[in-house]
Structure formats: structure tokens, C-alpha cells
């Protein structure tokens, strides 16, 4: 932070203050529109790298074991373009409504850094594979808005660097080229996003779309990396690099917007610069390096031929995408828009939902099933850091069937679900909920059974009953609590309450 004593802060160089230094009002600062554009790098899940046959499945392997002369940039090695990566990029371009370029080409982006063994990254520059698309996203008020996509291009991932401190504290860098040349697509948006939350929703939907297309696996560490351009209306733009998680994007943007607003509040101008996001600390820091576009000295890659793949895109058949699936779920299953949105937000969740409905016992229980997946199961999974694929569909369908037949109360169903997930989580076999309920006597009891319990509790608490009869309505709560305890949640609270009130009234 600059020292406020050194001048008036507006950059005029006047130490005493100047006409332009008037600090804006709090309202003006608060009302400044937020403008965000994203550059999203996603690893494509091809079997091999972009320009060589090295396996792209490198994550659990020792460093420098997925490398060859091509991805190590050894002299004389020539890149050979992976057809599948091109097809995947076309799929994404088509799904996001981009125009496929008649001719696209690769270029060399030159920079000197140990993560690039060749001294350049092969990327697409002035002739990307596709231009001008769009995707919708919900804004913070829940209204659908269009985010324009500027372009999509193909490029290779650089290697991975590990920074170390040596004993003499000098520090050095270790390089692993397993990631070198993994295929990436970079998706660039126009500055159409207006808040960190909206940006996160956009990314979530983009991730969902890429997973629907089966070209990307968002669960792999580092499979998505984001650079964000952020500015406040009328002020300079800051590029924030190195964001490598979905949560990180929202955090980095929120931090950066607060930082920029605070500068403007103090009457200072935003420096146009590249900043780095430090994920662990949730802050961005300025980096003095000024990378000028010219410094990359882009030129056409002489070792790769142009692509003419526009007609390929026409032949690509897209699967049902999130928006279409949401509409279908709402009309076919008559579920609420919120449930539909939640279900289609992850193709695995959508498939799970449709999978359990295949069970004839609950195939008509579309709303009940949606409620239990969205409002209970997903939260319980999140809490245990579990994935939905781990849940056997027949077990969950069985639980929904118990609920449908009113054999268990909601409370017991939640308990059974939790026990079931704990079993799976800890590597035990998960039992069918109907068996669990039968074995442990958790089934919903009959009114006769509950009436017996009520009689017993009432008889044991004559004072509370007397208080209730003398007009202290609260006194009944104590009795209800005692009875709930005795019935272990197997009674539906509403009907239990009625039974108790009726019984006590009958005693008068």
C-alpha cells in the first residue's frame, strides 16, 4: 500500500491535494458496476497427450515417466496432433454455440521458463478453432442472462514446477514434464459477468456441460485453471492469474473487488497489472513482471499443418445438455425448477435420479425421489466428502419406497440414510434400508402401540397433565418430548401430537 502522506493520491504529483483528488462518496463506490471476464483452461480427458503418444493418465505416477522426445522438446522431434483432442474441442465449441473456423492454425508462444522444455508453448493465436459463442447463467437475482464466449482454442499444458528451499536457503526449482503437452482448451469469455457468485455459477455450469460432453473430468486435481479479468466500471482492469479451484475463483474475485473498491474510496487509481492469487491465503498479490503481448513473439508453428474441420462439427452429435435436461425433467417428472436445476447440475446426479426411478416400486414417485436426492442425500454426501456414484441405486430406491409406503418417518429415513452412507464411507457393505428397518424395529408404529406409550408417560407425569388441564398449554411440551423419546422418532410428529392431545382431553 502506498503511503498517504506522499501525495494526494490521484497521481497528479501534487503533495497538497488537487481538484481531481476528491474522494468519491461511499454510495458512488458501492454502486460501481463489477465487470468480470474469464479465461478458463480445461484439460481434455484424451488417452494421450496433444502432440505425442505419451499416456495422459499421469497423476499417480513418478515424475518424468510420461515423457518422450516430443513432449520433452528434444531437438528434431516433431509434434503429431491428436485427432481426439480436436474432436473434443469441436464438441465443446458446438455445445457453447461457437462458430467453427474454416481454417485454424497453431502458433508458438515463446517464453523462457523451465516448465516449457521447448522454450515455447504450442497454442492457437490469431486462428483459433472457434469464435463467438454464448452460454446462459443465472444472475444473482435468479434471472437467466447470456454470457458471450469470445473464443475457444487448443493448446498444450506446460510442465509442473515444484519450488524448494535448500539448506542454504537459496531455493531451487524441480521440474516434472509428465503434464507437459497434456491437451487443454482455453475458453475465453467477454467481460459479461457481474459478480463473483455469478462467475462461480458460470464455472459450475461450464464444468457440468464439459462433463455431459464427456471430454473433461473436473474431479482431477488441477484439471481446471482460471485467469480472471476484473474491473470496476470506469477504472483500470486487473488480471488475476493462477486460480485453480471453483471456490478459489469466487474468493479471488471477492478479494480483488474489495481491494479495488478500497483504493477508489481513498481516491487512488487502480494500477493495470497482473496479480497472482495465493489460494492458501485467499489474497492476490501484485507481480512486478509486465508481460507484454509482444514479448511472446507469436509466430505460426511450422511443424503443424492447418486444420479445416468445420464440416466435422456438423457430424458431431451432442448429448442432451444441462438446460435441455432441466426442461425435460420438469415436464416429464413434474418436479420443481429448483430440484431440476440441482439434479442436472452434475450429470452423475441426474443419472442417479433417473436410475433410481427405474425401480418399479418408486417409478411414479418422481417428486419424493427428487426431494430426497436434492434436499437430503446431496448434503449428506457433501458432509462426508463422498461422491454419488458410491451410493448403490437399489439401496436408495428402497429407502424412497419405505417413505412412499409410509413405513418410516422422515426422521428415521434420515437416520437410516446416514448409517448407510457411513457404512459405504468406511468400506462396509451397505444393507438394504428395508432390512435395517425391520431388524432394528425402526418401522413406523401403529396408533395402538403409541397410545400404550402415551398412557404410560401420562400416568408417570400426573403433575404435567394437571398443569395442562389448569390452562398451562406449555406443560404438554414436556409430555410430548418424553413420548418422542420413547418412540425413537418412529412416530410422525404431527399425528403423534394429535394422539396425545386427544388422549389427555379424554381424561377430563
Amino acid at each position, binding site marked *: 500500500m502506498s503511503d498517504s502522506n506522499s501525495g494526494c493520491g490521484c497521481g497528479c504529483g501534487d503533495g497538497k491535494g488537487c481538484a481531481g483528488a476528491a474522494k468519491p462518496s461511499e454510495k458512488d463506490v458501492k454502486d460501481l458496476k463489477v465487470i468480470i471476464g474469464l479465461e478458463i483452461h480445461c484439460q481434455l480427458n484424451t488417452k494421450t497427450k496433444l502432440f*505425442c503418444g505419451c499416456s495422459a493418465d499421469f497423476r499417480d505416477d*513418478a515424475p518424468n515417466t510420461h515423457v*518422450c522426445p516430443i513432449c520433452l522438446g528434444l531437438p528434431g522431434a516433431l509434434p503429431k*496432433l491428436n485427432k481426439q483432442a480436436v474432436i473434443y474441442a469441436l464438441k465443446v465449441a458446438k455445445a457453447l454455440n461457437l462458430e467453427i473456423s474454416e481454417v485454424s492454425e497453431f502458433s508458438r508462444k*515463446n517464453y523462457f521458463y523451465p516448465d516449457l522444455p521447448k522454450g515455447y508453448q504450442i497454442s492457437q493465436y490469431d486462428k483459433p478453432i472457434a469464435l463467438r459463442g454464448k452460454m446462459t447463467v443465472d444472475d444473482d437475482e435468479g434471472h437467466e442472462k447470456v454470457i458471450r464466449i469470445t473464443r475457444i482454442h487448443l493448446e498444450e499444458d506446460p510442465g509442473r*514446477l515444484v*519450488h524448494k528451499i535448500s539448506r542454504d536457503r537459496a*531455493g531451487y526449482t524441480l521440474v516434472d514434464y509428465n503434464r507437459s503437452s497434456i491437451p487443454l482448451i482455453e475458453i475465453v469469455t467477454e467481460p459479461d459477468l457481474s459478480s463473483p457468485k455469478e462467475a462461480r455459477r458460470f464455472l459450475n455450469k461450464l464444468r457440468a456441460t464439459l462433463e455431459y460432453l464427456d471430454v473433461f473430468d473436473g474431479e482431477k486435481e488441477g484439471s481446471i485453471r482460471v485467469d480472471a479479468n476484473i474491473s470496476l466500471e470506469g477504472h483500470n482492469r486487473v488480471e488475476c492469474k493462477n486460480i485453480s479451484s471453483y471456490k478459489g475463483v469466487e474468493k479471488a474475485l471477492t478479494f480483488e473487488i474489495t481491494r479495488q473498491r478500497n483504493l477508489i474510496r481513498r481516491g487512488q487509481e487502480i494500477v493495470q497489472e497482473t496479480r497472482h492469487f495465493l489460494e492458501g491465503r485467499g489474497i492476490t498479490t501484485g507481480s512486478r513482471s509486465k508481460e507484454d503481448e509482444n514479448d511472446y513473439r507469436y509466430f505460426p508453428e511450422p511443424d503443424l499443418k*492447418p486444420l*479445416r474441420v468445420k464440416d466435422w462439427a456438423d457430424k458431431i452429435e451432442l448429448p442432451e445438455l444441462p438446460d435441455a435436461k432441466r426442461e425435460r425433467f420438469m415436464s416429464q417428472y413434474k418436479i420443481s425448477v429448483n430440484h431440476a436445476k440441482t439434479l442436472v447440475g452434475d450429470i452423475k446426479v441426474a443419472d442417479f435420479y433417473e436410475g433410481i426411478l427405474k425401480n418399479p416400486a418408486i417409478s411414479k414417485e418422481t417428486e419424493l425421489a427428487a426431494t430426497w436426492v436434492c434436499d437430503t442425500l446431496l448434503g449428506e454426501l457433501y458432509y462426508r466428502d463422498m461422491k454419488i456414484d458410491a451410493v448403490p441405486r437399489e439401496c436408495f430406491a428402497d429407502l424412497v419406497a419405505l417413505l412412499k409406503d409410509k413405513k418410516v418417518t422422515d426422521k428415521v429415513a434420515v437416520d437410516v440414510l446416514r448409517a448407510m452412507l457411513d457404512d459405504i464411507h468406511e468400506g462396509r457393505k451397505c444393507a438394504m434400508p428395508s432390512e435395517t428397518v425391520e431388524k432394528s424395529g425402526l418401522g413406523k408404529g401403529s396408533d395402538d402401540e403409541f397410545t400404550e406409550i402415551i398412557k404410560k408417560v401420562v400416568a408417570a407425569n400426573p403433575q404435567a397433565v394437571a398443569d395442562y388441564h389448569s390452562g398451562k398449554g406449555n406443560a404438554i411440551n414436556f409430555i410430548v418430548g418424553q413420548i418422542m423419546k420413547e418412540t425413537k422418532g418412529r412416530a410422525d410428529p404431527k399425528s403423534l401430537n394429535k394422539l396425545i392431545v386427544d388422549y389427555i382431553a379424554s381424561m377430563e
Partner: protein
Amino acid sequence: MVSEEEVESIAKLADITIEKEKLAGFTSRFNDILEYFDILDQVAPDETTKDDLYNVLREDEVMPSLTQEEALVNSGETEEGYIKSPKVM
């Protein structure tokens, strides 16, 4: 033609130090090379130079990679399978 300033900035991007007294020599050698390109540019493209290849692609099939030992054989210094480089960042 490139100027001495341009050569200096290119050297900086490549992390190479060019001593002041050698700058003029490097600049003129750069310009010699660039002149060859000017000559090449004057050759009109004809049938023999025409290149209309496009969509040169390979299938997504895994090929064997080098072993770690082979991969590291030319590296000056290594540590636990990594290539060691001077500190960056």
C-alpha cells in the same frame, strides 16, 4: 532490421546476458540472418513450394514413453526423478 535495443530485450526474454561491448556484434549478425529472409521472401511461390496439406492427425493411441532414467540422462542435475533447475519465481 533490428536495433541494439531490440537485441537487448530479446536477450532479456531468453534470460541471456549480452555484454555491452558485444551488443553491436550480435546486432549485426542478427541483421545478416534477417537479410537472408528478405532474399527468401523475394522468391515467388510456385508449384514446387506449394503446400496444401491440412488435417494431419494421429489417432489417440498410447505409445510407450521413455523410462525415467532415459528421460533424465541429459539433465545436469536431478533430484528424486525431477530435473533440477535454478530457482524461478
